[in-house]
């Protein structure tokens, strides 16, 4: 099981600023280890973000995203106290869901 995400959600005016850090190796499948063996690809493929029960962000990612990816999004019309649920799944079927609430 992967480490928990670090999520920060903060209102700025009428817009919620959401930043998330996901702990993930994001192996490209191109890298070789010290013994010269190719390290198999292992990377997050899909991400969803729900705010206040509504799907606001839905996306897919590939190997050109950095290790331990950080994403930032802004959601207009969100309110302090809204629940933020973030979910990812990787190419090996590992998945993780974490949540927080929007701070005022």
């Amino acid at each position, binding site marked *: 099981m992967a480490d928990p995400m670090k999520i920060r959600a903060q209102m700025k005016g009428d817009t919620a600023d959401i930043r998330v850090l996901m702990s993930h190796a994001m192996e490209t499948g191109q890298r070789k280890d010290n013994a010269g063996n190719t390290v198999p690809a292992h990377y997050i*493929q899909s991400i969803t973000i729900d705010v206040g029960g509504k799907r606001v962000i839905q996306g897919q990612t*590939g190997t050109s995203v950095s290790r331990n990816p950080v*994403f930032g999004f802004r959601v207009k019309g969100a309110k302090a106290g809204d629940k933020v649920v973030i979910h990812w799944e990787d190419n090996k079927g590992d998945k993780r869901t974490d949540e927080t609430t929007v701070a005022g």
Partner: protein
Amino acid sequence: MDALRRTLLKGAGATGAIAAAMAAGVLTPSRVLAADYNRAAFEAKDMAGALKNIGAAGAADNSGIVIKAPDIAENGAVVPVDVASNIANTVSLAVLVDKNPLPLSSAFDFANGALPEMSLRLKMGQTSLVEVVAKTADGKYYRAKKEVKVTVGGCGG
């Protein structure tokens, strides 16, 4: 080794199924983006292939797409990039790194108040154009690009 082979086999099968479904007109490219992993686009080895597979082959240049990225990145493993679209009714953004072995980094759909902008951190193997493709609600695609010089590559370690 065997596990890797299995993944590859599964991957090939899934790509075939999606391609067949698209050919049959069952799935439009945007439906594919929303549901199954768009393996064809993410595993495309050049920009043309990636753009074609996200449906953006004929995207027109548009200065309404704003890309904030460093002119020179000292560490290609972590290149912070902010992208935003000022084009009305933008519903999706995709970020690509022209010279990476697999250029497409991410594609996100925005809904229910999410603003068409995002920040992320890219891996860049070498100096390259970073390209952003925006899709509007009426299914049109637009693109913009910015060059980022990389002094130490982020791929291959």
